[in-house]
């Protein structure tokens, strides 16, 4: 019960902090829009309205992923800079309960990216979207946010020991964009890439969002997406203990 409360309160405070950093916010929203714009131009030249709708959802989820991947990798590094990492570790809570709300906050901001990209496509490129199953669409977005938070959490803990964590976070932006079916259908990619794509929740989240919007059956995709997300959380919790102990041995929790 108190753990749930902790998750809720810290998610809200994290969200508050992100929204209060206008520059980070602007950067996070604008940066993926550049890629979205480029994609819109490319697909528009292809001259099929169907692909432009396809691209619009893809670009929107690209934006969602950006807000998690670039920030989650550096979440710990930021706490280190602020000098708060040690304070968090000296609290009696399991560290994963502290970190999970952080990445959940970042993933929530992704909804903003999603909306911004869809509106961008609507008003600048005239991509008209109709959502076939609004309720399932909302559910698909929720599932995607949760799984992104889970994947971000796994990144964040795995990077605790790397000072170059922020780069590693950025580093996962492109590959996921490339292989999770956002703009490039999986069938275009070499066969050996497919298993990697299937193991990544964004692939299923993307598919769920498209299916629900275009009138398919998104439930299996939502299930796979949330299931994988939970799997990342479980692995992340296990990694947390090892990583923190290692950091206490090496003395790498503080900057100085």
């Amino acid at each position: 019960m108190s753990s749930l409360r902790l998750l809720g309160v810290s998610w809200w405070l994290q969200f508050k902090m992100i929204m209060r950093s206008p520059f980070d916010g602007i950067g996070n929203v604008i940066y993926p829009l550049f890629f979205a714009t480029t994609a819109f131009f490319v697909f528009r030249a292809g001259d099929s309205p169907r692909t432009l709708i396809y691209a619009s959802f893809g670009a929107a989820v690209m934006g969602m992923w950006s807000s998690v991947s670039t920030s989650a990798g550096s979440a710990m590094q930021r706490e280190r800079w602020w000098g708060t990492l040690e304070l968090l570790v000296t609290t009696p809570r399991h560290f994963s309960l502290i970190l999970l709300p952080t990445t959940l906050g970042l993933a929530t901001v992704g909804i903003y990216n999603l909306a911004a990209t869809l509106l961008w496509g609507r008003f600048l490129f005239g991509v008209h979207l109709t959502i076939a199953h609004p309720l399932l669409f909302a559910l698909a977005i929720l599932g995607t946010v949760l799984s992104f938070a889970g994947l971000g959490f796994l990144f964040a803990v795995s990077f605790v020991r790397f000072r170059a964590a922020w780069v590693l976070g950025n580093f996962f932006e492109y590959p996921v964009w490339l292989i999770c079916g956002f703009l490039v259908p999986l069938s275009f990619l070499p066969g050996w890439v497919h298993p990697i794509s299937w193991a990544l929740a964004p692939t299923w989240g993307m598919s769920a969002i498209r299916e629900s919007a275009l009138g398919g059956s998104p439930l299996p995709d939502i299930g796979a997406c949330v299931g994988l997300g939970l799997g990342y959380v479980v692995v992340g919790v296990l990694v947390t203990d090892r990583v923190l102990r290692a950091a206490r041995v090496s003395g790498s929790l503080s900057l100085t």
Partner: protein
Amino acid sequence: MIVAARIFFVGGLTSFRALFYWLTPWIYIPTMLIAPIFQILLFAYIGRSAHLRSDEFYVIGNALQYSSIPCLFAMAQSIGGERFQDTLSAILVSPAARIPLFFGRSLPVVLNGALVSAFSLAVGSLILGVHLPASSFAPLALVVLIAAFSCTGLGLINAALSLRIRENAVLSNVIFGFLLIFTGANVPLDDLPSWMSTAAQGLPFTHAIAAARKLANGAGLGDVGGLVGAELLVGAIYGVAGFLLLRWFETISRRHASLERS
């Protein structure tokens, strides 16, 4: 003259090294060598799925355009970064001549940017099976160098702005984004609205990318002389403007004591 040359080379190199002490292979390899390859792959596959243009188009466009990451960030770091290390004022009160000082700092940035582009061009071509004629290697290397020079000119303006704006990384990213859309790296200028393709004429990379594509298709260096000249001119204009902006900010900063952060 010799003193100026020393400030140019030694000062430039030292500052580059000092500011990038954190730039270990752990950071350099992912950001400078692997990320551009993924950018190339992303757009090449987007192009394939939209049934457009050849892989070569995207390999050349993105390999050149990606050098804006090292050029913009490194330039801002090597000037704006010092503000946070409190050494800028120490340098500015020194009587060292400004021109070799600021331009000296840009030399390693240009070389590094060209290296990043050349590497991604070579590796991207290999992965996607793009064949570049051997005769184009030398002229392509020259164009890559000029593109990096031209973007570093813009980087100098970015560096000057970094003296006034705290969140320089965001600004660098935004400039990178504009270059991604406008320069023809991924979208042919003809497919852009006319105001965008007009604006592109004044941006780094636009002419270099066009020249590089021609070279890859067998044109000689003589055939692209005009484009190369235009790219050089664009870079030179940005470089001079950036330098003037830096001088101007230096003066205001001295008046308002806003050089240091605290």
